[in-house]
C-alpha cells in the first residue's frame, strides 16, 4: 500500500514537473498553483471543522431541548414538591408530581448495583492484570467483552423470566445460599485474623494458639451462618420484581465496564513500581494492596464513576424487573420491595411527550430527563477530570 501511494506521489510530481516545463513563467504558475492548493485546503479544513462542530453540537441540542422544556415545569410547579414529595399521581385532577420516591428508587438500585459490582469488579481487574497467567487472560478478556456486549433488553428478559420467578417461589432458599456464599471470604478473613492475633497475644505457643483461635472463630462463623440461613430459608419475598432483582442484574451489567477500565488503569502504571516493591521484599498481595492499587486509584475511581453512570442511565432492566411502584420502601433500605426509577418512569410515560393535553405531564418527564442529564454530565466531567489528572501525573513524572 505504501509503495502504491509512493507511485502516485511520483506520478503527481512527474506531471507537475512536465507542466512546469511547458510554461512560460515558472514563478507565476507556482503562485497560482499555490493559491489554488491553499484555497482548497482551506475549504477542506473548514468543511472538516464544520462536520466536527455539528457532531459536538448534537449534545448541545440535547441539553437545550431538554432544559428548555423542563424549565417550564419548574416555573409552574413547586421545586420542593418535585424533589421531596412522594405523591406521584400525574393523571389525577388535580395532578401531583412528587417524584421523591422515584429519585430514591434510582438511588437505591444504583447503590445496590455498586455495592455488589465494585468489590468484585476491582478484585477481578487486579486478578486479570497481576495474578492470572497470560493464557487465562486471553480467555477471560473476550468473555468480559461478551458480557459487555449483551444488549440490556436481554438482561431484562432474563431478570423477568428467570430471576423473578426464582425469587418469588424460592426466595428464602436463594437468600440462604447467598449467605453461605458470603461465608467463604469471611472464613479466609478469620484465618488471617487468627494468625495475626496468635502471633501478638501468644508468641510462645504460636501454632497451638493459632489453631485454637482460628478454629473458634470459624466455628462461630459457621454457627451464625447456619442459624441465619435456617431463618431466612422460610422468608417469603412477596414480589419477585423488586429492587434486589434489578440491583443484581444491573451489577452484572456494570461489571465489564468497571473491570476493563480498572484493568487499563492498572496496566498503565508500568512495571517499575511493581518491580521496586517486589525488590524490597513485599509479597504480591502487599504490592497490590499497598502500592499498585493506590497508584492506580484515580483510574479505578474513574472506572467506578463510569459504572455508576451506566447504572443510573439504564432503562430496560429496571423497567422490566424493578416492579414500578412509586413508593419509598419501608424501611427505606428494604431491597425486597418494588421501586420505581427515573428511567422507567420516562420510558413508561414517554408517549405523553406530545403537545396535546396535560402540558405538565409532558414537562415533568423533561424535568426528570434534565435531572438525569445533569447527574450524568457531572459524573462524566468528574471522571474526565480524574483521568486528565492521572495523565498529567504519569507524564509529568
Amino acid at each position: 500500500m505504501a509503495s502504491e501511494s509512493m507511485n502516485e506521489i511520483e506520478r503527481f510530481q512527474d506531471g507537475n514537473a512536465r507542466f512546469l516545463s511547458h510554461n512560460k513563467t515558472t514563478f507565476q504558475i507556482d503562485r497560482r498553483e499555490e493559491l489554488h492548493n491553499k484555497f482548497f485546503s482551506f475549504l477542506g479544513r473548514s468543511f472538516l471543522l464544520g462536520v466536527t462542530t455539528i457532531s459536538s453540537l448534537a449534545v448541545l441540542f440535547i441539553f437545550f431541548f431538554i432544559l428548555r422544556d423542563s424549565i417550564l415545569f419548574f416555573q409552574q410547579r413547586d421545586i420542593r414538591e418535585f424533589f421531596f414529595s412522594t405523591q406521584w399521581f400525574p393523571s389525577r385532577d388535580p395532578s401531583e408530581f412528587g417524584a421523591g420516591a422515584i429519585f430514591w428508587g434510582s438511588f437505591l438500585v444504583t447503590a445496590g448495583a455498586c455495592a455488589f459490582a465494585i468489590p468484585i469488579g476491582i478484585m477481578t481487574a487486579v486478578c486479570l492484570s497481576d495474578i492470572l497467567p497470560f493464557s487465562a487472560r486471553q480467555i477471560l478478556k473476550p468473555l468480559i467483552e461478551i458480557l459487555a456486549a449483551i444488549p440490556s433488553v436481554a438482561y431484562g428478559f432474563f431478570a423477568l423470566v428467570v430471576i423473578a420467578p426464582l425469587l418469588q417461589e424460592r426466595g428464602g432458599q436463594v437468600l440462604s445460599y447467598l449467605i453461605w456464599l458470603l461465608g467463604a471470604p469471611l472464613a479466609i478473613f478469620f484465618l488471617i485474623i487468627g494468625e495475626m492475633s496468635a502471633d501478638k497475644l501468644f508468641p510462645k505457643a504460636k501454632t497451638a494458639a493459632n489453631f485454637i483461635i482460628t478454629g473458634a472463630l470459624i466455628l462461630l462463623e459457621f454457627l451464625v451462618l447456619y442459624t441465619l440461613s435456617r431463618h431466612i430459608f422460610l422468608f417469603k419475598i412477596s414480589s419477585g420484581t423488586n429492587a434486589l432483582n434489578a440491583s443484581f442484574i444491573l451489577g452484572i451489567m456494570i461489571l465489564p465496564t468497571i473491570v476493563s477500565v480498572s484493568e487499563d488503569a492498572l496496566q498503565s502504571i508500568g512495571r517499575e513500581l511493581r518491580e521496586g516493591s517486589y525488590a524490597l521484599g513485599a509479597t504480591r498481595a502487599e504490592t497490590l494492596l499497598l502500592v499498585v492499587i493506590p497508584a492506580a486509584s484515580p483510574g479505578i475511581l474513574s472506572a467506578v464513576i463510569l459504572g455508576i453512570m451506566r447504572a443510573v442511565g439504564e432503562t430496560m432492566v429496571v423497567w422490566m424487573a424493578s416492579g414500578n411502584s412509586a413508593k419509598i420502601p419501608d424501611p427505606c433500605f428494604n431491597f425486597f420491595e418494588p421501586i420505581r426509577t427515573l428511567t422507567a418512569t420516562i420510558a413508561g410515560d414517554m408517549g405523553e411527550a406530545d403537545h396535546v393535553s396535560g402540558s405538565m405531564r409532558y414537562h415533568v418527564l423533561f424535568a426528570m430527563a434534565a435531572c438525569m442529564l445533569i447527574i450524568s454530565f457531572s459524573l462524566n466531567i468528574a471522571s474526565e477530570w480524574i483521568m486528565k489528572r492521572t495523565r498529567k501525573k504519569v507524564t509529568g513524572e
Partner: protein
Amino acid sequence: MNLAGRKLLDKAFTILGMLSSGFLVIAIIILLTPIFMKGIGAFVFRATIEYRKMELDLFERGDREELEKEIKQAESARSPLFEKLKNFKEGISNFPPAEKKRLSESFHDFEMCLRELLGPFPGESVPELPRNKYGATRWDQALIKLKSVLYKEEYDYTNPSKMGQKIMKPRSKEFAGTSLENLFPYLEQNMEKILQPKFVFYRQFLTDASKDAHFFGGIGPEVIGTIYLTLGAIVFAVPMGILTAIYLTEYSRQNWYTSILRTLISTLSGVPSVVFGLFGLAFFINSIHVSQSKSVIAGSLTLALLILPTIVRSSEEAILAVPKTYREAALSLGASPWKMIVSVLLPAALPGILTGIIISMGRAAGETAPIIFTAAVSLGEAPKLLDIFSQPTPALSWNIYNLATEHQKVDQIRHVQYGMVFSLIMIVLSLNCLAIMLRSRFVKKLKG
C-alpha cells in the same frame, strides 16, 4: 505481621481474586445457557402433525401427499376417541338430572382442553383465528396440554392459614363409570400415533413473518427491522464520525476550542439512552418533522447520535496508533496533508476504524430505549427501502420487551421470546467476535 501471616494474606488475596473472576465466568454461563438452550428450541424441535398442517396452509411448504398419508394414520388413531365422545354425548341424557349437569360441565371443560390439544373436532366448523384452527404444534407444548387434559388442576383450600395447595385430580375419576373412563389411558398411550411428532429444523424462523400475533411463524420482520435501523444508524454516524476524528487528530491545533469540542463529544457518550429517545421524539419527529410519525429514519437518526461518540473515539485511537513514520514518509515525498490522510493514514487505520464501527453496530442493534417512540411497533410488515421515510417497523429489541410483557398469551409463545433473544444475542455476539478478530489482525499488522 510476621512472615507466615503475610504469606497467608498473599494466598488469601489470590483466592479472593480467583473467586471474583470465577464469579464473572459463572455469571456469563448462567446468563447465556438458558437463553441458548431454549433459543435453539425455537429452531429445532419436535413438530407434530398439526404443525405440518399449519405450515402447508399458512406458508405453503411441505409435501401434500406425505401429509395426507400422515393425516390418515393419525385419524385411524383418533377415530376411537371421537367415537367414544359421540357415544358419551348421546348417552348423557340417560343420567339423572343432577349427574347430568355435573357431567356436562366437566365434559365441556374436558372438550375445551381436548380441542387445544388436537384442534377442532371432525365435523365442527373451522374457527377463524389461526390459533384455534390447529392443535398443539410443538411436542413439548402437546405434552403440557396433554397433562391438562388428563388432570384437572384444583386447589385445596382446607387450610385457612395458608394459600391453597395445588392438586392434580385425574379427570378419569370425574367420568368414572361412564364410557369415557378408558379414553384417558388410551389417549395417554397413543399420543405419538395421534400427533406423529418428528424433529424439524425450522430454518425459516428468521425470515418468516409471524402469523396470528407470533403464535405461528417466525420473526422475519423484526430481524429486517433491526437490520434497517442498524444500517441507517451506520450510514449517518460513520461519515460524520470519521471526519470528526480526522479533524481532531490531524488538523486541529491544541487550543481551547478543540478541547471544548472533545469534551462535548465525550459528554454525548454519557447521556442515558432514554434521554436520546425523548430527544429523538421531541426533535426529529415533533420539531423538524423528519417524518409524520414514527419511522425507520427517525429511529436511525436517534441511534446514530447514540453511536457517534464511540465511532469518533475508536477512529481517533486507530488514527493515533498509526506510527509517525508513515505520516512523515508520505509528507516528505510531497503529498498534501489531505492526500496523506486519504492514501496512507486511513488505509493503515482502517482495521481499527472498522472494529469501532462493528462494535457500534452491535450496540445499535441491541438498544431499545431510543427506538420505543421513534420507530418501533408491535405488529407490522418489514419495511421496504422506499418506506423508510414513512413507516415504522418492528425491531428485535423492542419486540422482546413487547412479547415478554404485553402479549395476550405470554406462556404459549415462550419459545418465540427465547428465539428472539437468542437471535439478537447471536447477531450482537457475532459482530463483536468479528471485531475482536479484526482487532487482533490489526495489532499484529502494526507491530510488524
